[in-house]
């Protein structure tokens, strides 16, 4: 079973990196970009076949290590046989 974890800064927390990338896009002529925030994607290969159980474990991993609860929020996505099942 494969999973993806998305980690991003919480809304309301300044993302200077995102602002710099947005300015660079503007420099290339992409003036339609209104906001840009940089986050992380973590791809995991997991043992087991129970997406519900995996989802719970992934959320625990996020709380304990993958995301910093002070500044970041996360979403967890299980990817099965090429079909994407968004669980949170």
């Amino acid at each position, binding site marked *: 079973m494969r999973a993806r974890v998305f980690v991003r800064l919480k809304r309301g*927390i*300044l993302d*200077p*990196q995102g602002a*710099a990338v947005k300015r660079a896009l503007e420099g290339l002529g992409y003036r339609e970009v209104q906001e840009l925030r940089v986050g992380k994607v973590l791809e995991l290969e997991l043992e087991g076949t129970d997406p519900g159980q995996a989802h719970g474990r992934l959320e625990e991993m996020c709380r*304990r*290590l*993958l995301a*910093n609860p*002070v*500044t970041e929020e996360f979403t967890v996505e299980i990817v099965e046989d090429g079909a994407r099942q968004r669980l949170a």
Partner: protein
Amino acid sequence: MRFGVVIFPGTWSDCDFHYVIGEVLRQPVKYVWHRDTDLGDLDCLILPGGFSYGDYLRAGAIAGRSPVVEALPDFVARGGHVLGSCNGFQILCEAGMLPGALMRNECLQYRCQSTHLFVENADTPFTRGLRPGQVLKMPISHGEGKYYADAETLRTLKARNRIVFRYCTEAGDVTKDANPNGSIENIAGIVNDAGTVLGLMPHPERAAESAMGGTDGLLLFHSLIGSLVEDGSVLKG
């Protein structure tokens, strides 16, 4: 008084701390590997600056879950003191030993420069030899030193007088221009509620000999040694 200096893979200020404690201050000091959990013979553990575990994921994130850091709550509970500088401060926040987080500098630049620090709290073991409002000069060297805490945490820090250092001008004014990294309210260092765990972004070990441009960093050690030795709280083996 016995010091331990922790080495994680990627730590870079370990030798500087070891040298300052052993050669400048003439105190017993040893290195502590990141997998060691037996801290029984130490009075103060130093978490030095650097890039522990490559700072992968987030600065200090992996070190914050390492064996030596997981042994810290017990160490502190039995009277041990912890000083985390730079990456050490990031690690203490990641481990939940101190509140808040250290984020990418607002200017997006790595800042390696001298800073001035306003002593806000001179009533911790680390600052007892200082006076409130005193200005210290110490270097910083980091890309992720912007202290952030939510409003409630900030209120608690203030109410409990846990903000120890703020970035200021040479004259001691806490201004936006004196803030090198965008830290909330110019915060450069905080302590835990008991005052026994200090985290700060500046490097006291790099301000410990006049040949290095200043000795204000020694003042923290003098305060700590004075506090612990004089009140008899140096831990017994």
